[in-house]
């Protein structure tokens, strides 16, 4: 893991050189430049929308779990500028780009200190007409209806530890054909050659088909996917509706392949409800037949690719209480029911001025040594306690 011990200017030079040195990024830059040149002399220039945010995050980390084995308290300071460029609907064409510039100082932290100083989250063009929508480029693909667990999503699954975090974009193509107001069929092809999971794979593509509709006030979807990176083929089912409380369910059957010699089911079910106008609760349960029922059987090589967990059974709960029109308290709990590791995340968010948000968050890890959230050896884990303050200015 890279450490940030160089000077500020060194970080930027290093980041830019590394960014430009990547062949995929060079292609994206050429792609973006050509796109800008193409629209600059047209009416689309006037329609260009610019937005984004600047965010400063301070983290203090305490207790065990450091990759270096050093349990002394450490800190991390991150400044993050996100710039969004959007060109909506110009003669059936559209384009969207999101850039990140991140400046870090302080200790290394898995998932944060390995961020690229300069990166592109999204860079895609769209073509829309009544018959179909086509999106090509680095984008987010969204399958599934759950919050923390989306087993049907093989492209950008959420991170159960922080389900609302921005999903990484993937290079690919999506073609959607509408079949009525609430029905459609989507075809997706995602190239994972630039990621760690796809490195060295001859055909690092994941392709899929998903049909979505609404029957009896219930959203339904069925999907199939062919993941050449993992040599896995899946069938997925999804539903979201109301039965006294809100519910959603999704299930995936993975056919035998290189990863597993027997078919495996993974399913997630969740319910949500609210009381009055201020209190909201969500509970989700996940069961994964292909997960390990003990830490020795965990497939660490699969983590972060098409899945965000290692075990077989999980429970996620989230509670949000709106204290007034601008502020809310939150508490989420993620528990691996087999190795008994738990992550507790209390939080407070307030809008201090229009467009300015202050968030305070704690991440408490209570897990036995060697478990998923506190792995043994050099595997990346989380410190026992993390305290985070985040100030975000949207523009």
């Amino acid at each position: 893991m890279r450490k940030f011990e160089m000077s500020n200017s060194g970080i930027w030079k290093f980041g830019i050189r590394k960014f430009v040195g990547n062949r995929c990024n060079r292609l994206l830059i050429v792609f973006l430049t050509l796109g800008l040149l193409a629209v600059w002399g047209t009416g689309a220039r006037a329609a260009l929308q610019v937005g984004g945010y600047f965010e400063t995050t301070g983290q203090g980390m305490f207790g065990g779990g450091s990759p270096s084995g050093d349990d002394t308290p450490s800190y991390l300071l991150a400044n993050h500028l996100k710039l969004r460029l959007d060109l909506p609907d110009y003669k059936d064409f559209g384009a969207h780009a999101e850039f990140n510039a991140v400046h870090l100082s302080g200790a290394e932290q898995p998932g944060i200190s390995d961020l690229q100083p300069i990166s592109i989250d999204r860079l895609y063009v769209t073509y829309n007409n009544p018959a179909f929508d086509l999106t090509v480029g680095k984008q987010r693909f969204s399958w599934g209806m759950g919050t923390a667990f989306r087993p049907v999503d093989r492209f950008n699954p959420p991170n159960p530890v922080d389900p609302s975090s921005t999903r990484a974009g993937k290079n690919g193509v999506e073609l959607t054909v509408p079949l009525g107001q609430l029905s459609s069929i989507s075809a997706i092809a995602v190239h994972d050659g630039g990621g760690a999971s796809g490195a060295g794979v001859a055909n690092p593509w994941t392709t899929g088909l998903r049909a979505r509709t609404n029957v009896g006030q219930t959203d339904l979807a069925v999907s199939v996917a062919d993941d050449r990176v993992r040599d896995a083929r899946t069938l997925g089912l999804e539903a979201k509706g109301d039965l006294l409380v809100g519910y959603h369910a999704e299930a995936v059957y993975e056919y035998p392949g290189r990863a597993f010699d027997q078919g495996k089911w993974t399913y997630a079910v969740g319910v949500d409800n609210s009381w009055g106008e201020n209190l909201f609760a969500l509970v989700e349960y996940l069961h994964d037949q292909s997960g390990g029922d003990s830490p020795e059987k965990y497939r660490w090589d699969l983590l972060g690719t098409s899945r965000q967990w290692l075990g077989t059974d999980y429970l996620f709960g989230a509670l949000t209480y709106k204290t007034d029109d601008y502020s809310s308290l939150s508490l989420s709990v993620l528990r691996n029911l087999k190795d008994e590791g738990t992550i507790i995340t209390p939080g407070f968010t307030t809008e201090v001025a229009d467009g300015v948000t202050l968030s305070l968050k704690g991440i408490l890890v209570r897990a036995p040594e060697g478990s998923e959230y506190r792995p043994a050896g050099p595997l990346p884990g989380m410190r026992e306690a993390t305290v985070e303050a985040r100030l975000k200015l949207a523009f």
Partner: protein
Amino acid sequence: MWMKRNMYMKRFFIATIFLVGALATGIPAQAVTPLEIMEKVDQQAYIGKARFEATLVMSSRGRDVVKEMVAVTEGSSRAFVEFTNARDRGTKYLKIDKELWMYFPDAEDIVKISGHMLRQGMMGSDVSYEEALESNRLVDSYDISLAGEEPVNGEQCYVLELKAKPGKNPAYATRKMWVSKEKYVSMKEQLFAQSGKMVKVATTEEVRQFGGRYLATKVVMDNLLKKDSKTVFIIKKIDFNPAITPETFSLKQLGKH
């Protein structure tokens, strides 16, 4: 038929709601029954389709949050709303019958709103999704009586009292409504919970004439359950004959990048 009835609540968020509820043509005042008054309000409030640009100002604890939106509505059951102010740009709502879907650009995902969430305030306003989506005509849900006549903002008004009919479960147990005798626009409405407590007051501050119709173009909703909290809805521009395609009210349009 949600657009036909609920005068004030609907007007607020999904533009459809606001417009429709507020629209009324000039009808000569004459001796009419309470039911006839309400039916005229409902009839005149209904429009086939419309596209409008509006501003929503939400005030709480001395701070104002301003949101801009464009809304398209067709009939009484379809509405599409898109927010255009910088902070909420790309946030969209699709309503078809009694179901609601949302698209948040940050999440890049279409989300079907659970039934219980319909009781929450839309985008932090003082109008809930449920109020916005209320479909029953007021004349169907309430027994209506005439309580007298009073002026409101210089308009001579009928004062109507609405009480929920047995077996009906509208958003509010009772309402008191001041309807302009000249324009058949609701100039003021008080909304009461089952306990009898007044929870919201809607006041029309501006009425403009569009052809033969009168439209409430500025409505203030005071939420009495929250201290110093109110929502102001202002219609800036309206087109009664917009181009609408089958795609306008669809998940395809909602999720369009």
